[in-house]
């Protein structure tokens, strides 16, 4: 079989109820259809086991490739093995590196954590108090955490308070805990949040305590609400954005190349992220242009 | 007054020949039994014994402590003080299992059966189920055993595989009794087993009790139906306020003294009989061609001031009349008018609006609101009259309290106060509160289904009295009861149902217990 054949591919995700994942699934589906392939999609509604079983069914039904959209590859070991045995490509987006996959299209989370943390530290001269909100249960967030630690450990004058977020209820939890921290009157200089959803809550808590001139927040993801916040004020100083739509398209291209026999020694194909500050934030309803957008603050000046 | 009755009781007790004369030790002997609930002394040093072959009746007002005594003896409550001997041996009964082990079986007043389970499972509930391989229940054996138990009490037409919830109340009572009687227990305790039974069933039960007594079992038996108590008992013990108030052997029973010991005063059982020849007003309730699942084309009329009895065996259609008139069961055909206006029997709400009020048979299931205070229980249907505004419908607390107080006083409801929980009242007083709820609300036609069930003799008289009073107020009352002797006592006229039809109408001197039973059993030649 070759990429030019009318292939049968499956695009699936453990939880489609998120704008990012929907976008990836849609862009992958569109790209595959554009190649004249037959596409079947599946959404596990949060149930990873059901997703795995469904993926195995695709293999049994003789699909030519699997595209996993943001379901943790670490929890799909069995599926990946089965795909390998069946000799079909298993390409994933944003799902982590696991032996046996054809390739994962993603972002280098450790690097992203580093970028956000470095920008943050630079703005406070490596001194003062920083609060970190993260949920270390998710491997991608653990990677970002590693990036964060890699940076702050170099600054002895930096006081770090690490807060583990309660999930579910993460937004309300971050809002309440940020408020409680501010309530206790401690001087805080900056906040590092593991992902944009909770950055919103931290920003609101700061604004409502009227501390928006003293504290800023840095984050990662590049979700639309984060762009809105960056546009609306300075409390959310920046976010490191990923090319979500591009990942779906790249995944399909990767399947195409894999079917044609290409091997991917690196296994992980990192897409370049963007640093989104108020100078670079796209206008409402638009996305950053990932081809041209800057990755470091110097490129912006 | 109290002193007289106490001394009477003491005298009566003295006249009772002592048990210590020799012979085998009593099957069950209770000495100095005391049960203190927080704030209440429910039993105060009570002595009691049940001898071999004896049927021993335990009497007393609602709340006198009868059920508490039974619960202490059967391990449902832990006694505060006192000793229990079984066949002369002192025993500790800390749980229902202990009671079973010592050969004591019981039919409690409430909570005997699990309605969602089958008759056969209920019969063996708590016991050891026959098994296969030591694990799985052997259902064939269970059924066979259940059939044996049912046969022993003559309950042949109950399917052991039927669900208890499907049974009639009287069948449920008989199943509870079968459960206790069929065990090999030496002592069998029955707490108001006959409250839901009709006379035939009571006779069957008594037959078995006598037979078992002859075989050497002993019975402790509680009932508020004094007539049957005097009929069956070998001995009577009366409790009052948790204390021993007298004891009589069968041949020494003095009815008047017993009643006096129960109620603590001497004027209780003034045998009032309905005034014959009383003049009634206009017809209020007119029923014509009424048919329903168990009723075939019934026609009758009730007049202002009249108490009309509706008698019949369970399933005969008598009770169904009450359900159909109050919109609980669907009528197939027929017309019902109150004061000449047709009444829509679609549901209880419309029946209520049409002028009916129902006092249902099962107080706990159908009438009481357990978490509510006495005030709330009385005022509920009448709240519409006490709201301060038509939109928010705020209840005027003052008006509500006033009406509840007046009703409670009027009906002589005994309680700690208007705010006492209804659950904390004794059975008779709960029933008076239920009646009061409807008297306060008002109706043209009162449907009273067994309003005196499980109510003590003093309260019964009060309820009869109340019934007459509301009728005299110019309303019509429909009355039914499982106690046939109540019809001649309460009603001006009785309609007897058999097999869905009205087979007889009795008034005045013809209205006797035997005549009613005769007709209800299907006898053709009624005294009409």
């Amino acid at each position, binding site marked *: 079989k070759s990429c030019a054949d009318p292939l049968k591919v499956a695009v699936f995700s453990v939880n489609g*109820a998120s*704008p990012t994942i*929907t976008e990836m699934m849609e862009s992958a589906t569109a790209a595959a259809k554009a190649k004249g392939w037959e596409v079947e999609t599946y959404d596990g509604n949060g149930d990873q086991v059901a997703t795995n079983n469904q993926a195995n069914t695709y293999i049994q039904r003789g699909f030519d490739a699997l595209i996993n959209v943001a379901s943790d590859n670490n929890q799909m070991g069995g599926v990946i093995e089965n795909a390998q045995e069946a000799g079909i490509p298993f390409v994933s987006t944003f799902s982590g590196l696991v032996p046996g996959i054809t390739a994962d299209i993603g972002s280098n989370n450790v690097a992203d954590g580093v970028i956000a943390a470095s920008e943050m530290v630079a703005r406070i001269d490596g001194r003062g108090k920083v609060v970190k909100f993260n949920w270390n249960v998710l491997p991608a967030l653990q990677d970002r955490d590693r990036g964060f630690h890699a940076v702050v450990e170099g600054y002895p004058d930096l006081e770090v308070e690490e807060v583990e*977020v*309660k999930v*579910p*209820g993460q*937004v*309300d939890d971050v*809002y309440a*805990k940020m*408020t409680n921290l501010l*309530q*206790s009157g401690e001087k805080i200089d900056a906040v590092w949040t593991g992902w944009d959803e909770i950055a*919103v*809550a931290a920003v*609101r808590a700061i604004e*409502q305590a009227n501390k928006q001139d003293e504290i800023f927040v840095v984050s990662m993801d590049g979700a*639309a*609400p984060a762009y809105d*916040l960056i546009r609306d004020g300075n409390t959310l100083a920046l976010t490191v954005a990923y090319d979500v739509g591009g990942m779906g398209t790249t995944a399909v291209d990767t399947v195409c190349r894999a079917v044609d026999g290409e091997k991917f020694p690196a296994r992980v194909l990192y897409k370049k992220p963007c640093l989104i500050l108020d100078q670079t934030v796209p206008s409402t309803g638009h996305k950053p242009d990932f081809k041209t957008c800057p990755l470091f603050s110097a490129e912006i000046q | 007054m109290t002193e007289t009755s106490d001394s009477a009781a003491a005298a009566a007790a003295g006249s009772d020949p002592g048990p210590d004369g020799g012979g085998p030790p009593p099957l069950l002997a209770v000495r100095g039994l005391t049960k203190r*609930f*927080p*704030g*209440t002394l429910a039993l105060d040093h009570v002595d009691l014994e049940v001898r071999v072959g004896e049927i021993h009746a335990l009497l007393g*007002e*609602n*709340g006198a402590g009868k059920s508490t005594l039974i619960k202490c003896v059967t391990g*449902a409550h832990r006694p505060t003080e006192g000793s229990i001997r079984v066949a002369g041996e002192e025993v500790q009964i800390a749980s229902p299992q202990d009671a079973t082990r010592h050969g004591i079986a019981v039919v409690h007043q409430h909570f005997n059966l699990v309605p969602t389970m089958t008759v056969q499972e209920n019969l063996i509930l708590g016991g050891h189920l026959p098994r296969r391989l030591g694990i799985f229940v052997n259902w064939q054996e269970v059924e066979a055993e259940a059939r044996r138990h049912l046969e022993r009490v003559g309950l042949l037409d109950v399917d052991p595989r039927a669900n208890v919830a499907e049974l009639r109340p009287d069948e449920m009572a008989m199943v509870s009794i079968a459960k206790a009687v069929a065990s090999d227990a030496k002592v069998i305790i029955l707490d108001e087993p006959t409250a839901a039974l009709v006379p035939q069933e009571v006779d069957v039960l008594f037959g078995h009790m006598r037979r078992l007594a002859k075989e050497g079992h002993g019975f402790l038996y509680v009932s508020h139906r004094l007539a049957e108590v005097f009929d069956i008992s070998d001995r009577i013990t009366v409790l009052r*306020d948790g204390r021993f108030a007298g004891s009589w052997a069968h041949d020494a029973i003095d009815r008047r003294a017993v009643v006096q010991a129960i109620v*603590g*005063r001497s004027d209780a059982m003034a045998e009032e009989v309905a005034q014959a020849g009383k003049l009634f007003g206009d017809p209020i309730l007119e029923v014509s061609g009424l048919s329903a699942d168990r009723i075939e084309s019934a026609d009758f009329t009730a007049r202002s001031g009249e108490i009309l009895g509706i008698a019949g065996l369970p399933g005969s259609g008598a009770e169904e009349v009450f359900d159909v008139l*109050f919109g609980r069961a669907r009528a197939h055909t027929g017309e019902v008018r109150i004061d000449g206006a047709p009444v829509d029997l679609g*549901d*209880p*709400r419309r029946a*209520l*609006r049409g002028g009916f009020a129902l006092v249902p048979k099962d107080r706990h*299931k*159908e*009438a009481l*609101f357990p*978490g509510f205070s006495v005030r709330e229980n009385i005022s*509920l*249907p009448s*709240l*519409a009259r006490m*709201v301060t505004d038509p939109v928010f*419908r*705020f*209840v005027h607390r003052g008006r509500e309290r006033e009406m509840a107080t007046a009703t409670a006083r009027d009906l002589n409801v*005994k*309680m*700690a*106060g208007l705010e*006492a*929980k209804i659950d*904390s009242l004794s059975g008779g*007083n709960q029933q008076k509160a239920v009646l009061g*709820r409807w008297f306060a609300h008002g109706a043209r036609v009162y449907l009273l289904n067994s309003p005196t069930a499980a109510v003590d003799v003093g309260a019964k008289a009060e309820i009869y009295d109340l019934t007459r009073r509301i009728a005299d107020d110019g309303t019509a009352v429909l009355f039914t009861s499982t106690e046939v002797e109540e019809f001649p006592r309460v009603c001006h006229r009785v309609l007897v149902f058999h097999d869905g039809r009205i087979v007889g109408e009795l008034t005045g001197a013809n209205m006797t217990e035997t005549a009613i039973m005769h007709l209800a059993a299907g006898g053709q030649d009624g005294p009409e």
Partner: protein
Amino acid sequence: MARNDGTAGAAADGAGGAAKPGFDWLNWLARYGTLASLILLLVIFTIGRPSVFPTVGNFLNILNQVSILGIIALGLTVCLVMGLFDLSIAAMATLGGWLATVLVFRNGPQIDPYLAVLLVLAAATAIGVLNGTLVSYLGISAFIETLAMGSVITGVVLGLSKSRTILSGIPKEFLAIGQEYTLGIPNPVIAMLLVLLLLWAFLEHTQIGRNLYAIGGNQEAARLSGIAVKRYALIAMGISAACAALGGLVAAANLGAGRPQGVGETYLLNAFAAVFIGASTLRPGRFHILGTFVGVLLIGVINNGLSIMGVPTYWQYIVQGLLLILALFSASVLILRRR
């Protein structure tokens, strides 16, 4: 004659009346145990962080933090009084917050914020009434019906919103509902206290409220008392839905974000917990508004106190669970001595 009064009086104790001889500690604990635990917790946290915890600012903060849970749990109480489980409150809260932001959105219909609140409450009430109708006229178990309705609502919101959060473009007047103060008290707290007062008066002092209790206590007896039992499910579930939507709306105004998912789920189990805690407070065995409020405060104080003490998150889960068990143990002693 006097006997029965005495007995009945004493009997009432069983349920919780005043005891005459000596003080009835167990009874006291059953009623006030939860409240006492709440006060004990306040004392402990005060000792733990004397400069931070016991300040007016922090107490307002606690009230503010529980206000959304409070609004939702108070509404749920009405349903549970009637014996109906309402699991759709989670989705309803999400719907309320999202819909309100859509209505007031600068690039959307741009409806006046107060009108938007009314519209949201009306829509929620309508869905709640539909819940009630399905439950009482079609006879579907409330548990499943509301679970299913929650799923439908979730889907509709996800579909309409394309899973996107509305963040900027929400007018100040709307945000004020969740962020501003009135007379020095945060508006969400005022909203909660209003709901508290309204529902308290409703359940305790109106005919409809009394009828709801009657139905919850003995449905058949209520029907025989002429109460149109089925209609009340509509009222109860309408109120529960409206409160859930209001809670979500306040959350949206507070955060300045109309999120299409995950808002209400946060409060679902805690709302039930608060109502059940309430049923072991002051009037053991009965769901009631003031009890629910105590439950809400208990949960809020535990959360706030542990967070302020800087307890690590996993310890927060543990301690929170243990404190709940302890608080309710004190309230349940009554059951222990029941034999």
